[in-house]
């Protein structure tokens, strides 16, 4: 609890069994393994840190160029480069254990079995508080179709992960689908404790001078303020479709952005691309939430979750 102008403001939220001191988290792939930001950000203030996606074996990632800026956003085709689960546990966890914030490990795989094996290896490790399952990855057995675009595959991954861990499991949804509520309901039925959305929207940019794609991988994931309205709409739809907590992601850079997601029904939010250009974005969002609640005469952030008012026509 914090005190502002003589008023106690309670920012605590719950994602199933996972309790956060505030609803502001940092998004996977945009905050490294936290140490990268330790000199610029007070890590101990964050609600939770979601680390870069981890796979069973280290992955080298895609050839460069991997990032390109677009209007109010960026495209990335990092190719899920990461140190692998063993490298993560040996080289990254020690620092994270020293951070007084929740640590959520984002996992990725190319088969349901790989996701399950990862969940097993990350369970029972001191300092890991939850798993976030990135299902926007290609299923190698199904010719590279992303798990997150097929309800049956998403169900299989969620069930497999749940079967291997007693940690809270957040399933991170892909926006590259026709109806995201179908996916949200599928993973809820499969036992997900929460859903987070959205991952990046698939996009593309071309250099007209050379007539070549700007990314070596041709296509990449769009993130940043440009995607916020789409993300907000999807969060609003999903929050009405499921009864598990929803975590909002997509272009969030300011407290006002975060508030929009909370009002639309998100219980917590993740700050992504904004970390790159404003490393203190998450901290200033925490301050801004508190100031907003005080100004609105609310003593708990929980009072505004899903408090969107829509006038009847």
């Amino acid at each position, binding site marked *: 609890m914090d005190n502002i102008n003589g008023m106690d403001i309670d920012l605590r939220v719950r994602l199933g069994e996972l309790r956060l001191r505030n609803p502001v988290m940092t998004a996977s*792939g*945009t*905050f*490294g393994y936290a140490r*990268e*930001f330790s*000199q*610029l950000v007070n890590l101990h203030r964050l609600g939770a840190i979601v680390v*870069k996606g981890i796979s069973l074996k280290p992955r*080298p*990632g895609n*050839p*460069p*160029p*991997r*990032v*390109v*800026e677009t*209007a*109010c*956003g*960026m495209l*990335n085709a*990092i190719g899920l*480069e990461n140190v692998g689960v063993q490298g993560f546990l040996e080289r990254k966890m020690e620092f994270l254990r020293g951070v007084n914030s929740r640590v959520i490990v984002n996992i990725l795989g190319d088969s349901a079995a790989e996701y399950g094996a990862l969940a097993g290896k990350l369970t029972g490790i001191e300092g890991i508080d939850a798993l976030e399952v990135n299902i926007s990855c290609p299923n190698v057995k199904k010719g590279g179709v992303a798990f997150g675009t097929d309800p049956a595959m998403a169900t299989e991954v969620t069930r497999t992960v749940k079967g291997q861990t007693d940690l809270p499991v957040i399933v991170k949804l892909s926006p590259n689908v026709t109806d995201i509520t179908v996916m949200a309901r599928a993973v809820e039925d499969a036992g997900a404790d929460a859903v987070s959305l959205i991952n990046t929207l698939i996009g593309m940019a071309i250099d007209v001078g050379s007539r070549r794609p700007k990314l070596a991988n041709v296509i990449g994931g769009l993130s*940043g*303020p440009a995607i916020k309205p789409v993300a907000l709409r999807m969060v609003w739809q999903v929050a009405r479709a499921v009864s598990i907590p929803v975590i909002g992601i997509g272009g969030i850079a300011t407290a006002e952005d975060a508030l929009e997601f909370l009002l639309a029904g998100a219980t917590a939010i993740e700050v992504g*691309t904004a*970390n*790159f*250009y*404003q*490393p*203190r974005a998450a901290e200033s969002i925490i301050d801004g939430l508190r100031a907003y609640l005080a100004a609105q005469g609310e003593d708990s952030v929980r009072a505004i979750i899903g408090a969107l008012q829509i006038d009847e026509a």
Partner: protein
Amino acid sequence: MPEFQEKAPLLQKEAIAPGIFRLTMHAPEIAGAAHPGQFVMVQVDTSMDPLLRRPFSVHQVTSGGNIQILFKVVGQGTARLARLTPGDQLDCIGPLGRGFFLDRRDRLCLIGGGMGIAPLYFLAKRLLQTGESPGDDYVFLGGRSREEISLFAAEFFDLGYTVKVSTDDGSMGHHGFVTDLLGPVLPDMERVYTCGPFPMMRIAAQKCGQAAVFCQVSLETHMACGLGACLGCTLTGADGRYIHVCRQGPVFDAEEVAWTT
């Protein structure tokens, strides 16, 4: 290594040549910690477009906690920077990355092409602090024309270095590649530092490799964060593995880099 985020007031803007500017800003924490070859991530605008910060080498640290950047207008972000006026504030993060190795003092050659000159001036000044006369040390500067390069030639000369220039149009010094200047002096050199276009650094690296002269290069890539978080700034290393320019570099030993790409 310490890193800071500072809102730095712009003190001075110099128009060096058409499209080339030098900014001086007050950033005492960054100035106090900066090492030659390191860079700053500058927020060029607080609107969302352009969104990402832009990387610039620390060109010089001056007394009173000031830093300078030297840049050429190549796109939207640098065009915005060029429109700033003294008194404006620039949000800077730095100093970032691994800079040049400068523990020992050997016979040196600094080779800068285009805006690659920027970090070399800071390096040249710091090397003076080792107390030895730089009269036997060379600075080779390559640019498009006299207009682009003459001021820098004079500044390095004033530090005491032996300066040679090349231009693309022949308007000053050697008409051709700056690396052409290296051949005659290379046998006497113990160390070469270079920053500039990739093909230029490749030639310098190859020549140094053949002559077994230690060579360091400062690389450029697209950077979203400059902090080691996005993993967007990769190039290929000599062993075929990816290197991350913002944290492992931007300065590398020439033999760490795959020059084929």
